[in-house]
């Protein structure tokens, strides 16, 4: 668990230089409240307190990673209650939660604070003056995310604001654009994910199918005409990379069988593109994962490991 935490630290550090100290405050509040809520819930339920296992810390970081950096620090506190108390421990604790707790928190916050959650985006700093946003009313500085611009104002406004070609991709890949902490630096997210792959903590099945499906479907249906969409942009924008490497393949809520995982990954990718292109929200991977989470046990029920030597008559 702590390795995953370590993999999330570089994007967090970078985000401080992009959006200011605000991101660190939000993350600290989120992690602290997740750990506190976990301890309190476990005490209240009479269970062993397991805050040392790092799982609440990861949830705290991921909540901070998927909300706008300009929101009030009270939002992640509410998110922590939703994620840990309701989404995790009331469903049986670690291993028994159906939904990814961090994404459940995001969905909850998006429903309860729709304005803050869709508008409190900070424009990237150009001068590394990391304290400059402190104390400034959010309305004065808020901007819109690339996917929101693309969705509401169209491709013209998008290219005006974020550029075109290699310049655009580089900015997106490095993280200099409005967005949540987790959707900024694609580079560091991918590096963290590759490290987890290298250590054997995750496998390629879900990240590759999620990103592959997003790229393929965005290319096919994301443009003015068929097969004129921009697959690279689709993968680099929104929380696609964070979702693919750190959320869709969450052990607890994804299937365990490899075949199930491939189908699940395609499902997450397809739903993401569907929501982005046809749904009411500019970004879709959060709901895509939440929608696929309860399908995991169903998939695992269909696809069983190949038994070495099944007993005749013994198996039901």
């Amino acid at each position, binding site marked *: 668990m702590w390795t995953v935490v370590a993999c999330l630290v570089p994007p967090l550090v970078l985000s401080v230089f992009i959006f200011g100290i605000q991101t660190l405050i939000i993350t600290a509040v989120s992690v602290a409240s997740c750990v506190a809520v976990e301890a309190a819930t476990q005490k209240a339920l009479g269970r062993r307190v*397991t805050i040392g*296992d790092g799982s609440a810390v990861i949830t705290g970081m991921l909540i901070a990673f998927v909300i706008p950096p300009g929101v009030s620090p009270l939002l992640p506190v509410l998110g922590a209650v939703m994620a840990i108390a309701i989404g995790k421990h009331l469903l*049986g*604790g*670690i*291993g*028994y939660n159906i939904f990814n707790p961090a994404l459940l928190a995001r969905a909850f916050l998006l429903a309860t604070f729709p304005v803050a959650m869709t508008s409190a985006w900070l424009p990237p700093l150009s001068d590394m003056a990391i304290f400059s946003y402190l104390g400034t009313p959010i309305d004065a500085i808020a901007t819109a995310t690339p996917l929101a611009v693309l969705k509401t104002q169209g491709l013209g406004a998008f290219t005006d604001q974020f550029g075109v070609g290699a310049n655009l991709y580089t900015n997106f890949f490095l993280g200099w654009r409005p967005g949540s902490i987790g959707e900024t630096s694609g580079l560091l997210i991918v590096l963290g994910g590759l490290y987890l792959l290298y250590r054997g903590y995750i496998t390629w099945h879900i990240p590759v199918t999620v990103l592959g499906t997003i790229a393929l479907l965005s290319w096919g249906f994301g443009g003015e005409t068929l097969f004129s969409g921009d697959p690279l942009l689709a993968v680099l924008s929104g929380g696609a990379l964070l979702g693919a490497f750190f959320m869709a393949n969450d*052990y*607890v809520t994804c*299937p*365990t*069988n490899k075949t199930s995982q491939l189908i699940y990954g395609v499902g997450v990718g397809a739903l993401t593109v569907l929501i982005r292109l046809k749904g009411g929200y500019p970004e879709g991977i959060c709901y895509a994962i939440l929608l696929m989470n309860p399908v995991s046990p169903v998939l695992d029920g269909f696809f*069983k*490991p*190949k*038994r*070495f*030597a*099944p*007993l*005749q008559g*013994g*198996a*039901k």
Partner: protein
Amino acid sequence: MASLLTFPKGGVHPPASKGLTENLAIEVMPVPDELEIILGQHIGAPCTPTVASKDAVQEGQVIGEVTKGLGVPLHAPVAGTIKALGMSGHPMRVSAPSITIQTNKEVVPAQYSRCDWQKLSKEELLAKVHGAGVIGIGGAGFPSHVKLNPPADNPVDTLILNGAECEPYITADHRQMLENAKEIVEGATVILKILGIKQCFIGIENNKPDAIKTMTEAAAAASTPEYTVVVQPLQVKYPQGSEKQLIQSITGRKVPGFALPSAVGVVVHNVSTARAIYDAVVLSKPLYEKVMTISGKGIKRPANLLVKVGTKVSDIVEYLGGVTPELSKIVMGGPMMGFAVSSLDIPVTKTTSSVLFLAEDEIDTTPHSQCIRCGWCLEACPMGLEPKEIALYVEAGRPQDTGQFGVFECFECGCCAYVCPAKRPLVQFVRLAKMKAKR
């Protein structure tokens, strides 16, 4: 050298930890004052004692007979006097009926000489194997004469000797192969003659290059147009020495469900069992001694010992200079499949291949937590089972419904528990499930 074979699905790579004993020659432990011989050493009904209290017995004399069903006779490991027919400690059954012999140290140890076994018929050879009390001493304790006489509708064409010794720490078979290669290979030819077949493979994991070399030389010397004995180096992967995995590695054949290896034309014996068959047939010496590994950081002097069956672990500990202050857990058998014991007052049986005295840093005492469904156990299971589901069903109070996950196909190798990041005792859950589930 042929390419390295292995089984395709599952398996793990635990640290071998064999360095403590792999270079130590087998050492004969002096006979202790008293031996406790457990009556049920093999799979099948326990023996019935044929001696009474205060009887004098000779080394090699039968002291227990099989009265019903599957089984082999039991022999006195030493000359002495029967002290009692009572109960002894047992690693799995807590306690078990046994015969206690008071050693008579005046009597000279028995001597055995070669006989001309080539002239004997299959039936006579089988009778010798049975009469000498030979069982599968790799661990299962299945009577060897039964394996050597497969059902007529299952023609056998291949013998495999298991020298994989994939359990960490244990080096008993390794040392046997180095020191008794000729005897093992001659034992193999005895088995080939009994089975009436020509082909024998000896599977050895590649982390024992010296054993592979010694056994290859012995096999080459013994191979004739009549019999071919070939050493097959195997990839180092636990549980390479599991019967079904070993057969698949070497022959590519899959033993179905509850069937015996003879269903796919194979008979498997441990290398140490081949040695016991050599003793039984060539030397007419019954099986009452055992080479075992005593290892771990918790024992003063790790060793490979030749002990009499019935020697108590406490006597072994005393002989090896006692335990170290770091000792934290005692395991009979290997670290993957063995049983932790709470007493040293337990006698060695024909199937005890090791006693490990493990220090704090050699074991993991982290408390287990809930299953996080990472699926690592699915990847590790060589049988393609779902250990996590079995454990969840047991925890939920439904052990009787675990048949659907193949609980009876599990041979408790422990790969799942080894990889489990939540440290769940999956093998123990499986054992509980097996008690309650329906076949």
